[in-house]
Every structure is written in structure tokens, then in C-alpha cells.
């Protein structure tokens, strides 16, 4: 029952919040957000007029720097140990992301505010840029989730950060038909943002797929038949008269 399982998972959230907050390495993520803001503040400042295209490019650089911090958000060397706990991997990872969301929102508000304060007359396409930022951060999370299967000790950031840099470099060199980082007055603006939306969706799916709980993986066939046989025997014994039943409970059932 997916609904019941979901409810069961959500009931774990309050209990998991504080331990997760303690387990996350906040320094890389927060440092990246801070460095991102610092770079943006250096580049976008009153005495240095920028063309709208350059301004947008700096906002995008700031997004990439912030995303670098996200690359290390899912690093969790204890994952192999915590596989057996009730909260699924997806739930634990989502919690990490949710915990960083307030800081991310504050960072994004600061970015938009800084650009708006220095260039008050320039209409910044905030919705479209927010979509770009969300897509980039989700792609990074998907990379980190996928990377944790490759990297030692489930430290996916080791894979995700270089991969993000390579992908971002490639994204700036895409041919015109597939352009993602589109200049503000381009005819491709709308189609580029459709591509960003598609990327966001794909990244979300990839994140979920890469975060499938290893505890739910299919057991080898021999183990499954063994377990099913034991369960059947246990059920058969459970149907026996009550006297037997009480006797049964003196030894601990193996289910």
C-alpha cells in the first residue's frame, strides 16, 4: 500500500529532523552559498556598469557556485549502516534538502535583491532565473545521489562537484539549437526555458531513482524462497490451537 507506506514514512519526519540536521556537513553548502554571494557582490557593484547579458551571466555563475555546495549535501558515510532503519533513503535525503532550503531561499533572495539594488531600472526575469536555479540545484542533487553509488564511503560530492563543473562548462558551449544559457533578448528564451523545465523534471526523476532504498532491493531468489517458506510455516503454526500458540511464543519467532 503506497499511501500507507507514505504515511508511515511521514510519521518518522519529526523524529529524524534533529539527527539529520546533526549529521549533515553544513560547512561546504553554507560556504558555497556565501562564496556565491561574495562573488556576485564583487561583480555586480555600483561603480561597474554591466550589459544585461553580462549581468545575467554573473547571476548564472553565482548559481553554479551555490550548486557546488549542494554537491556535498548528500555525503553520508553512515549510509551502509543506516540502511536498516525505518526511514527510507529517499526520505533521509529529502530531509537534508529540506533543511537547506531556508538558507537557499535566503541566498536567492539576496542575489535578486543585490542585482535589483544595483540595477533598479533593469527588469530581471526572476521567474525564469528561479527555474534555472532550481533545475541546476536539482541536477546537482541527482548527480550527488548517483555519485554516492560510485564514490567510496557514499561521499557522492567527490563525483558530483567535478561532474557539475564539466556539465556547466559544456552547457555554456551548447549549439544554438539546444542552448540553455540564453541571453536576455534572444528569440530562444522561451524554448530554452522549456528545456530547463524538462531538465528539472528529468533531474527530479533521476534523484528519486538514484535514491531508491537499498534496503528494498530484491533479495536473491534462494533467500526469498527460504524466507517465504519460513513465513508459511509460521502462519500454519499460528492457525494451530491456542495452547500450541502459547507454547510457540516461548521461543522467539524468526520473522
Amino acid at each position, binding site marked *: 500500500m503506497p499511501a500507507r507506506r507514505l504515511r508511515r514514512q511521514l510519521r518518522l519526519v519529526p523524529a529524524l529532523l534533529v539527527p539529520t540536521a546533526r549529521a549533515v*556537513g553544513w*560547512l*561546504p553548502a553554507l*560556504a*558555497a552559498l556565501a*562564496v556565491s554571494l561574495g*562573488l556576485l557582490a564583487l*561583480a555586480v557593484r555600483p561603480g561597474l556598469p554591466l550589459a544585461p547579458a553580462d549581468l545575467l551571466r554573473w547571476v548564472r*555563475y553565482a548559481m*553554479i*557556485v551555490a550548486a*557546488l*555546495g549542494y*554537491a*556535498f549535501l548528500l555525503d553520508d558515510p553512515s549510509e551502509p549502516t543506516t540502511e536498516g532503519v525505518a526511514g527510507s533513503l529517499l526520505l533521509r535525503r529529502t530531509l537534508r534538502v529540506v533543511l537547506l532550503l531556508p538558507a537557499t531561499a535566503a541566498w536567492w533572495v539576496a542575489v535578486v535583491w543585490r542585482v535589483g539594488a544595483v540595477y533598479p531600472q533593469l527588469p530581471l526575469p526572476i521567474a525564469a532565473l528561479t527555474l534555472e536555479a532550481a533545475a541546476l540545484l536539482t541536477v546537482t542533487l541527482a548527480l550527488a545521489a548517483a555519485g554516492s553509488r560510485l564514490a*567510496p*564511503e557514499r*561521499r557522492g*560530492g*567527490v*563525483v558530483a*562537484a*567535478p*561532474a*557539475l*563543473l*564539466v556539465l556547466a*562548462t*559544456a552547457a555554456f*558551449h551548447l549549439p544554438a539549437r539546444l542552448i540553455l544559457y540564453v541571453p536576455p533578448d534572444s528569440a530562444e528564451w522561451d524554448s530554452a526555458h522549456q528545456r530547463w523545465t524538462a531538465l528539472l523534471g528529468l533531474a527530479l526523476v533521476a534523484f528519486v531513482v538514484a535514491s531508491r532504498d537499498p534496503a528494498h532491493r530484491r533479495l536473491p531468489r534462494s533467500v526469498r524462497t527460504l524466507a517465504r517458506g519460513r513465513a508459511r510455516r509460521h502462519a500454519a503454526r499460528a492457525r494451530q490451537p491456542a495452547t500450541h500458540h502459547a507454547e510457540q511464543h516461548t521461543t522467539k519467532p524468526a520473522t
Partner: protein
Amino acid sequence: MTTTVDRPPAAGASRTLPAGARSRRSTLALTAVESGRLLRHPAVLAATAVSVWLLWRWGRGTAPVLHYADIATQFALAALAGAALLATNLAVLRSHRDGAVDLYGATPLSLARRTLSHLLSVLPLVALGGILVVADLAWLAGMPGSVGTPHLAEAATGPALIALGGCVGVLLGRLARSVALAPLVLVALVLGSLTVAELQAAGHDQRPWTWLGTLLRAPPFDPPPAALLGRPATWHLVYLLGIGVALATLALWRSLAQERARRRAQVAAAIVLVAALAATAAAAVVQTRPTSSTLADRRLAVVTNPAAELVCQRRGPANYCVFAGFEPQIDLWEPTVRAVVAAVPPAAAARALPVTVAHRVGLHRLIDEEVNLGVQEGQGPSGPIVAPVGTAWGRDGPLFELAHARLAASVAARLVAPTRGDGEEPRWFPCNAQAVVALWLGGQASPQAAEGISQAVTDPYSEIFVFSHDPVLDDPPWDVRAGRFALALLDRPRDQVTQTLWRNWDLVTAPETTIERLGEVLGIQPSSDTSNLGPGC
């Protein structure tokens, strides 16, 4: 995973060898293993692919000027330098990630030796960068129309950047155990370098301090002769290598201090560090000196009298004047010039020939970005008026299409409105029929020229435009309306238009003939959009 050296020196040998030689051997063995891992690291593989692709994309279809192409290799190799930073950092921190630090205490290699191995392991990657640069330049040198000679220091700057990236990665690994630090430092370095490069591109010689950045692109105009460039490439290479050695020594020194090594080794490291810093500082001072007055005078002389630096030769219908050493480019222009001449009635062509095609580059932008000295001071061209052409040339791409269009349309303009009498300037009206005819002739030269004309007309930056980002007085101006009419003519069957134009040649090329009159002759009405006539009309 931890790195172990598979084949330790044979037991017998180790007993006979002195301790120093043994640990030297072990260091080299670890270096070999680490460099193999570095070369196979996914980030390095991806960056190599990016570098190769960038080199290929920038070189493909161009008529390369090698003393500009060597500067372009630095930007392509910057990707590899970034990968070197990340990969060496991950390699240095691998033992921390794997919890193998304590186990290393049992191996014969000290921390400083391991650091040295990591530093040396970058060298094969540097060699890979060198091979890429040499292969790229050899490929470009073999292309038709290739001119110039690469500068050794410019070509070596890309590999030096890789070495620098590797040193930064190792040092960061020895300073902090977080793998998150290196990507952040890398991004800060990349953005800083890009910003400094941008600052230079806007002011060139006005901001010599920008040479303190890592890589600086070539001036954004058609390549001038190498002697006029004046980039302090050699000193910049010394500067980068000095920083690299200083960072490497710092990493070694840190390792020595951590393991409380002998004082002598620490003192030696400190001496090397000081020497490297001194070399860096000296190179920094020398490379940021303003342009020498001799070079500045020479540039100014070229800007005010462009013909002086050119060597001329007559080929067929045209006289070609090029910078010394740029002669192979003439072969590239010849088909275009011949095609334009062939589209003009022979009698009219005989009156106008020979046309002079001459190199003109935006060298004035090295002297002052804002002021076009060639145009601003009313410096008339000292010789006869020419058909200008830049030094950047290639098969396809918007920039090269514009270059094709510039040559074809200028040659056509000189044929349509020839110089009458000695030293007299031709009578040129950009909004009249003669401009339409000249643009149509230019469009006949090649598909690239036609594409360049259509590009400039459909996306003009003002009502009167020229086919160059660095216009000189020789560049004939064009009106957008004439351009639109010429595009309409280019869509028509060629023979039909040619016949009508040839029959009425004197009328359609007369300076006073309007576009409307030309429309009547051809039986095509130009667009009636006369409201926004340019200021020259």
C-alpha cells in the same frame, strides 16, 4: 581504495641500496601509480575531451594566424588545468577518505615524499597538454592560408597552467581535509581569471596590471603582425611557473612541518620558496610595465599610414597589399575577387581595374579603445583608396561570412564607383542604386559572402552599416534599405538580373541614380519604406 605500490624493490636490492636511494625509488614508483590514476580520472578524461573539442572547434575551417592560435590554446587547456586541480586534490585526500592515514605510518615513504609524488604525478598531464598544443599547432600550420609563427612561451602557457592547477590541488589537500574546498577555489579562480581577462579586453594597454591574472585572450580584432602585438608572453610564463613552484614548495614545506622532519630539509624548502617568490615578483614587475614607447610609436605609424607596413603584389585583376608574411592569404581571397570581377561587364571592369585589396586591422584599439584614430582624425588614406580586408579568414561561421562579405562588397564598390582622376575620392552614395548593384555583385562572389550580406542587412546596428567591427576610411558605408533591395535581387534568377544590369550599366552605376529608378529598370519595386532614410541619404 588505497594506493599501494605493487612492486617494491627486490628484497636483495633493498638491503644493498642506501636508504636515500630506496626512498627515491619508492617515490618514483608511487609517482608512476599516481600519474596513471590521474590520467584515468573521469574529470581529467572529460576535460581532455572538452579541450580537444574546443581546439577542434576554434581551428576548424579557419585560415589560422599562428601567433593568435597559440594564445587560443591556453583557453582550451584551461579546462585540463581545472581538472588537474580537482583530481590531484582528490588524490591527496584519498587516504583521509579511506581511513588509511594511520596505515601509511608503516610504509617507508614519509608524508613529504608522498606529497612530492603527488606533485610529480602532474607532469604526465602537463606532457599531455603539451602534446595537445603541438598537435593543434601542427594541424593548423598545415591548413591552406596558414600564416605566422607560434610563440614558444604562448604555446607553453597552457601546459604551465595545468602544472599550476595540479600544485594548487595538492596544496589545498595538504592545508584542509575537505574535498569541498577545491571546487570552490577552482570556481573562484576561474571567475577571477575571466573577470581580469574581461577587464583587459576592454582597455588593452591601459591596464597592464591585468597581466597578474592567469590567462589573457588575444586582442579582440583581426590579428596584426606578431611584432605589433607586444604581449609579455615569456615573462608571464615565468610568472605562472614561479607561482607553481612556490605553491608546490609550500605544500612540501607543510608536509615536512607536519611530520617534524629534519631542520635541513625545511630550510632547503624555505630557500626554494623564497627563490620562487622572488622570480614571481620580478616577472610580475616586468610583465606589468607599460608598452615601450618604440612599440607604441610603431603601432601609431601603422594606424596613421597603413600602407607603409604592407607589401604589394599584382595577381590577375587585382593588386594585393598584405602584411609581410601574410602572403598565403592572397590565395584565399583570389576566388572571391575574380568572381566579383567576372560579374561586371568587361568594358566597365577594364575602366576600373586593377582594384587594390589591402589588409586593414583594428590596431587602433590597442592604442585607444574608444577613438578610431584612422577615421577620427580625418586621416585620408595616403595611397589610392583600397578594398579593405581583415586578417581573419575562414570557411564558415558568422565572423568569417562577414569577412567574405566585406571583401566582396568592397571590391564591388571599387568597381562600381572607380576613382576618377588621380587622388580623387570616388563618389559614393550608400543609399542609391550603385550601393544596391555593388551589394548584388558582392553576393555573387560566394555563398559565404551572400550569407554575410544577408546577416549584416537583417541585423544591422544602424541604418548605415559597414561590414567590419573595426571600420577604416576605406570601408564603403551601406544603407540598410539598399541592402534589403539587394537581398531581394539576390533571390531572383541570376541571369535575368545580370542581363538587365549589364544593358543599363552606366545608368545603374551612376552616383545620382536612385533605388526607385533602379527598381523601374529591373521591374521590381523596392520596399516603400522611405521614412527612415539614414543620415547619409
